[in-house]
Structure formats: C-alpha cells, structure tokens
C-alpha cells in the first residue's frame, strides 16, 4: 500500500511540475512575443546546458556505479578458458567504453557548443571523403583485431575434447538436472533412450549397452580440478541451458540433439572459499533458457575437488545398476555375466530415489 501511495505521489509530482512549467511558459509568452520565423524558443539555451549537465552527471554516475558494482561482479573465472575470455572481455570492454565515452562526449558537447545563436550561420559542410574513409577504416581495423582474437579463443574452446577428459552427462528436465558419470571402470557413458525412462530410471539409461553398467548418477556435480571435463548435454522435455557462471560455461540442452562443452576447472571449491573468504561458497549450475514455471530455481550445486578427492568420491559412488538390481533383467543375455558383476551379493533394498530422482 505504501508503494501505491508512493507511486501515485510520484505521478502527481510529475504532473505538478508539468503544470507549473506550462504556466511559466504561458507567462513568458505573454511577456515577449516569440520570433515566428524560426522554431527557436526561450528554452533553447536551457536545453543546451541540459546536454552539458547530462554529460557531467552521467559521467559521474557511470564511474561511481561501476566502481560500486565492481566487487559484486563474478569473481575471476574458475576455468582455463574462462581466464582468457575474461581477459578478452575486459579488453573489449575498455575499447568499447572508450568509443562510447568519446562519441557521446562529442555528441553532447557539439550539441551544447553549437546551440542556436541569432547572428551565426551553420557551416554548409555536406561531405568529406577523407574523413569518412578514416572513420570507416579505423573501426574496420579494430573489428578485425577483435574478430581475430575472438575467433582464436572460440576455436580453442570449441575444439575436440582431449581423449582423457572426464565424461559427465547432464540431462535437463522440468525443473532440474540429472547428472550421470561414466563410471569407475571404463570412463564411457552408456547410451540412453528416452523411451526407457521410468520412475526409477529417470535418465533412461539403456542397459543393452555394456558401457552403462558401471555408470552412476548423482544429485550434485563433482568435477576434478585441473582435469579436462567433457559435459555431454541433452534435455528431456523442453530446451534448457547449462550455465556454470563461475566457469564461464554455457550450452543449451536440446531434446533430440545432444550437445557438448569441455573445459578445465582450475580452482577447487575450497580454494574459492578461501579466496572469497566465504566458507559457504559453492559453485552453481543454473538454467539460462526459459523452460517454464520453475526456470529460475533450476539449479544444482557444483563441487570442484582436488583430483585425489575426486577419485575418492567417485570410488564411493555405487553404479546405478548396483543400486537397482532389478534392471538386470533389461540386460541382453550375452551381457548378463558382465552386468552381474555390479550386482551386490546380497541385493540392497531397491529404493534408489535418493540418487536418481528429481531434486
């Protein structure tokens, strides 16, 4: 209610200003007849000074607000490629901020400087090819440099993942992420098939593929520090987008079209906590493609572990098949023997929702 009153008072305040301004104008008109031959009126100089004041206040506000927000920007990237894109971002930002500042300054200063004066005539200056050539070529050169550096970085980022990369599968769904690891034995993800999805096997792991047997799932994303990680991404229902803000990773998850992104995390969660002096800090995986009601909350926590810790964590994880032995019956006869290795001697209870189900 307070806001409503606030809003209304603002509206009335503006209306009041306009009424006052209008009556002032009327008074002025009564006092002095305006020159009818031009559209110039008594406010011309006021508007010209307005340009100057706008420039001044704008510059102060721009610099101040930037410095104020600087500490709250994303911290230094936590991945190898992120460091280079961050550097490129701030370099490009410097270039465009300079261009932004110089051109806006010229615009506003010229507007002020060349405000109407009765005894001056504008200069008839329709064209200057040399000048035009200069300001076509300079942006072109700057662009060429930016394109070239950008292209090289892009090429490196999107190159083939190293063959020893840790393969992790991320599946987006309304509204959460399933994570599947390639397993401790073969570092190969098994196939999935959306028609095999059921209440327990929520990713649709295909047990006719022997690579699936040792795959395990998790509700968090664990990554080894300093090792290349290949994310294999897809979605089950609508578009989603994997966004790891601190790692500068983003790639859409598309139903029916697997996508991928590889990168090397280079700061562990613990290091980041120490660096930011925040013991509760956690890396995140968010969704950045509109996917419905729960879009904004579709996040999981990401842990970057030291390689040894990562190994240890992986070793503790049980393959999905081991948690859910009933899926053994989906395995074709010729692979049954191989799959049975993963079934514990005394089957544990088949309740695996804790690992496999949605968040």
């Amino acid at each position, binding site marked *: 209610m307070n806001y409503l009153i606030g*809003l209304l008072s603002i509206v009335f305040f503006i209306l009041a200003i306009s009424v006052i301004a209008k009556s002032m104008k009327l008074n002025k008109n009564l006092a002095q007849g305006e020159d009818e031959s031009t559209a110039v009126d008594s406010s011309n100089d006021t508007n010209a000074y307005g340009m100057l004041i*706008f420039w001044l206040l704008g510059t102060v506000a721009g610099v101040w607000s930037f410095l104020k927000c600087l500490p709250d920007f994303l911290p230094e990237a936590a991945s190898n490629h992120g460091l280079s894109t961050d550097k490129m971002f701030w370099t490009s930002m410097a270039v465009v901020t300079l261009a932004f500042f110089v051109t806006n300054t010229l615009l506003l200063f010229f507007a002020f400087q060349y405000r109407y004066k009765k005894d001056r005539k504008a200069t008839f200056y329709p064209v200057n090819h040399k000048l035009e050539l200069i300001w076509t070529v300079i942006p072109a050169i700057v662009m060429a440099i930016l394109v070239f550096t950008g292209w090289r970085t892009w090429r490196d980022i999107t190159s083939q993942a190293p063959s020893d990369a840790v393969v992790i599968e991320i599946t987006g*769904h309304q509204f959460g992420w399933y994570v599947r690891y390639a397993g401790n034995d073969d570092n190969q993800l098994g196939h999935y098939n959306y028609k095999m999805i059921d209440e327990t096997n929520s990713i649709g792991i295909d047990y006719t593929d022997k690579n699936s047997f040792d795959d395990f799932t998790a509700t968090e994303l664990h990554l080894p520090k300093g090792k290349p990680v290949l994310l294999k991404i897809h979605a089950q229902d609508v578009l989603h987008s994997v966004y790891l803000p601190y790692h500068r990773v983003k790639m859409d998850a598309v139903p029916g079209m697997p996508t991928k992104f590889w990168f090397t995390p280079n700061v562990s969660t613990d290091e980041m906590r120490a660096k930011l002096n925040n013991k509760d800090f956690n890396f995140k995986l968010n969704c950045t493609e509109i996917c419905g009601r729960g879009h904004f909350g579709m996040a999981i926590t990401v842990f970057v572990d030291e390689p040894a810790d990562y190994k240890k964590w992986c070793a503790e994880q049980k393959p999905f098949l081991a948690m859910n032995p009933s899926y053994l019956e989906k395995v074709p006869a010729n692979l049954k023997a191989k799959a049975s290795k993963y079934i514990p001697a005394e089957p544990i209870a088949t309740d695996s929702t804790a690992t496999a189900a949605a968040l």
Partner: protein
Amino acid sequence: MSTATTHAEEVHAHAHDHEHEHHEPNFIQKYIFSEDHKTIAKQYLIMGILWAFVGGSLSIIFRLQLGFPEMQLEWLRPILGEWIDESGKLDKEFYLALVTMHGTIMVFFVLTAGLSGTFSNFLIPLQIGARDMASGFINMLSFWFFFLSSAVMFSSLFLETGPASGGWVIYPPLSALPQAMPGSGLGMTLWLTSMALFIVSSLMGGINYICTIINLRTRGMTFTKMPLTIWSFFFTAILGLLSFPVLLSAALLLIFDRSFGTSFYLSEIYIQGQALPNMGGSPILYQHLFWFLGHPEVYIVLLPALGMTSEIIATNARKPIFGYRAMIGSMMGITLLAFIVWAHHMFVTGMNPFLGSVFMFLTLIIAVPSAVKAFNYITTLWKGNLIFTPAMLFSIGLVSLFISGGVTGIILGNSALDINLHDTYFVVAHFHLVMGSASFFGLMAGVYHWFPKMFGRMMNKTLGYIHFWATFVGVYCVFFPMHYTGIAGFPRRYYSFTALGNGRMEAFTDLNAFISIAAILTFSAQAIFFFNFFYSIFKGKKASQNPWNSTTLEWTTPVEVGHGNWPGEIPAVYRWPYDYSKPGAESDFIPQNVPYSATPESNLPEENEEIANEKAIESLLAAQNESYNR
C-alpha cells in the same frame, strides 16, 4: 489500384475548385475504412501509442517483482485476479507471460507497426510527391489486418490459462507442448494466429511502400534526391518483405507440430511421465527460421528511426546531413548484412562451432556501417546552429542511445564472449538501448516533428522538453545498470534470483530496486506525452505551413492536407533535400521544389549545369498526371 486512381483522378479534376468537393467521403470512409494514407498513418500511430502503454505497463508489473521481491501485490488483485497467488505474490507463470507479451507487443505492435506503419504511410507519398500510396485499398487492408491481429493478441491477455508465456521468441518444444506450461495452450494458439495476421498486414504494407517509392516519385525526384527517411523506409520494406515470410513458415510448422502431430521441431521428448512419439525434428530449425526474421526485425525497427532522425537533425541543425551518400550506403550495408548475421543469437545452442565463427565475422562487420552512421550524425551537429525542438532533442537522444547500446553489440557478437553473456541481463541492456529505446526515441522524434503536418496543430514544446529529459535520463537509469547485473551473470527471464546463491542476489537488491523505480518514473513520464498528444490534436496552437523551415516536399502542402495531398499540381523536385544554410543563399533553407535557375546566387558550379535539365523535368508533368488518370 482502381480505387486509388479514381480518387487521384477526382482530385486532379477538381484541382482548381477543390473547395467544392462533391464526393466528400462519409464518416466511415473518412476515419474508419479510409484509403487515405494520412488517415491510415494516424490509425497506426494511435494504435501504436495505445499498445505502447499496454506493453509498458506489463513491464512495470514484472519490474515490481524484480525490484521488490518481498512486495505484497495484493492491491493488484482487482486487475490481475488469480494471477496474484494466495501469498499475495505474482504468479510465476504469469511473470513469464508478462515478459513474453511485453516483448511481443513492443517489438511487433509498437516499434514495427506503430513506427514503420505510421511514418512509412504518412511520409512516403508526402515526401516523394505522390497523391497517395500505390494501392490505397491494400493499404487499408494492411491496417485492418493489423487491427485484427491486435484484437486477437489483446484478447489472449484475458485467457484463464494466460497468454503465450515462452518468451517472445517462443522456442519450441516449450511453445509446442501445452503440457509444458499453461501459456502454451490456447494462449499460444492465439499468439500464432495473431502473428500470422500481423505478417499478412506487414507484407501488404511493405509491398505498397516499395511500389510507391519506385513508381510514384514526382518528376525530378531521382533516387539520389530522396530524403534519407524515404531511403530508410525503402530498405525497411525490403527487409520486411524478404524476412517476414520466413517467420510465417516458422509459425506454420509450429502450428502443424502443435495441432496436426508433425515433428518438425520435436524429437525424443519425455514430459509429464509420458514419452511422445515424435522423432527426428529439430528445435534448432525453428531458431534458424525465427532469427532469420528476428535479426532483420531489429533493423526493421531501427532503420526508420535512423532515417527520420537524419532528417530532423539536418533540419534543426540548419545544416545538410553529413555524408548523404555514405548514409545511404551504410543503410544499404546494414540491410544486406542484416540477412546474414542471424545465427549470432545461437552461438551456444549447439550449432556447429565453425558456423559460429562465420557468423561472428559477419556480425562484427555490421559494426562498421553503424559506426559510420554515428560519426556522420555527430559531424552533422558540428558547426551547426542547433534548434532544440522536442523532435531534435529526441533525435540527439537516439544517437546517444544508438551508440551506447551499439558498442556492447561488439562484445556480444564475439562468440567467445557470448558464452558467458548469452541470456543474461547484459543482452537485455544491449538490445533495450540500441533497439528498444533508440527506436522509441525515433518514434517520439517523428511524432513531435510531423505532428503539425498530421493534425495541423502544434504540440506543446515545454511539455515536450520535460518529456524528453525525463525519458532520456530515465532510460539510461533503467538500462545502463542492467549491464552490471549482466556482467555479474544474472540470467534473464528469472522470476527471482534466489537460486544464484552465494549472496549474489542480495548484492544487487538495491540496484534492482533502483532500476524498478526508474522504470516506474520513466513510464509515468509518458503520461505527459499522452496528454500533450491528445490535447494538442484538438486544442493545440494552429500550425503554420512549414513550422521547422524544412526543405522537403511535405511542407509544401497546405496546413490541412486534403485528399490527394496537393490541391494543385504536384510540385517538381530539382535539388537534394539538404540545402540548409547554403553559402550565398538569402534564406537558410531552399526547398526541394525550388529550381536552380531561381537561385543563381547560391548554386555550386555543378548545380549550374543542372539548370539545363529543368526543362526536361518540367516536361514530365503531363506524363505524371497521365499516370494518375490511367
């Protein structure tokens, strides 16, 4: 065609006694189903203004949620009803619907129809010296298709399941599957119907603009003597004509997927406990088709604004536009490049990275003609004698916003940098400045400048100044800080930023509240315009024939422009439209219809040679009249 010529014929026949027009159209013919380009332009403008207030108020509602996440919105229940949930908060799905409809309305209904529809219709015949559009009837149909499309879109706001909610880009599968969100049900059906009608309207308009510009220019009006406004409308119409049909096909395939069980965009979908049978479709196909229109659309919105402000800045700087041919060249460059940069919206969709490299290269080329335009604007101000009419102020504002929003395009167009910035507030800030606000400022500049020609009255200048400064400051306050949240990695279309964790939402609480307050104030300031506009239509000071001392042909028509535009013969054109402050000339402007032979004191050497052509231009009169009588 026949109807238009009949009217032209009448006008011509009655050229000498137009005071006694016998075929005075009745009220319906004159104001509703009018074939007069000026009336149609006003219809577009008023629809555009009404839509702008609808679209703007939607954004204010979602800004309340973003700026004040804890706020009780119970007081909105009388308007929004069940969209305010039990806890007094905005419904999460309705938030997405608001975002979607705000985008759709602003991009298509305000800045395409309201801007290009208004001024292409109004200015093309008046500035090239034509009695009306090539086809008045198709022109009328164009408006009424737009009206129908508006009615359908507006009605979708009142559905129980809500209007379309998948973002203005309506990416499938979200938009294709009603089970994915309620807005993808009837709301999306209406959205698609409305857009199909809108495309029909815009195609009919575009064909008309192109035909008129090519065929109906008055004698002597060669392409290189056309005002930049006309050039910009010409390029805009070409862009629309070639790209809107692609959106129509995208929409049609989506309609098939939604209603007839096809799989153009759908594949391997498991939703709500059910595996769908669709196989082999590609959501990426839709994105290619959509952005094939979507990107040119940016320029469809922006080019008319750039063209009109070129005209306004030259007039009020009392100086020729600097680099007339470079301005045409850069607009042509932008038009061509606009078709081949669309996939820069798709760098992280899983598209082949090599394709990404190609599109990054093409995208950054487009910065060059844009930079040329900005520099030419600034040089036009240099050593001018600037008169700050409200139109001039808005034009200068446009240049500033065009630069400020444009420079960040260089960053977003770089695919490596786009990885982190894609779908964050950095993008929101970028396109709201360069496309949204800049085009909006162009629209406002156009309204203030041509209002006297439209309604025969002047708008109040002081209210115009207040409107300008409130909007200019306001727009920067709203969109400039969004770059900061963008750099901080805030994704767009988020109902709330709680899931970002690590105190990031809290760090920007004040900033988000500031943006919302600035947005509310800026939006409220538009009430000044609303009042000024409608008040001045009826009560404004009577305008003189050429209040801005401008050179173009529209100012040679009478104050109250009648049907057929010129009561007598259409004037001939002898010179380019930017003879302001010409050395030697008595007056500081020489209209386009003044022959060089009448101004020996100010002619440049090559212009003296053109005097020889004047006879030839004049001799075209009979042929020109003939074309209207055919």
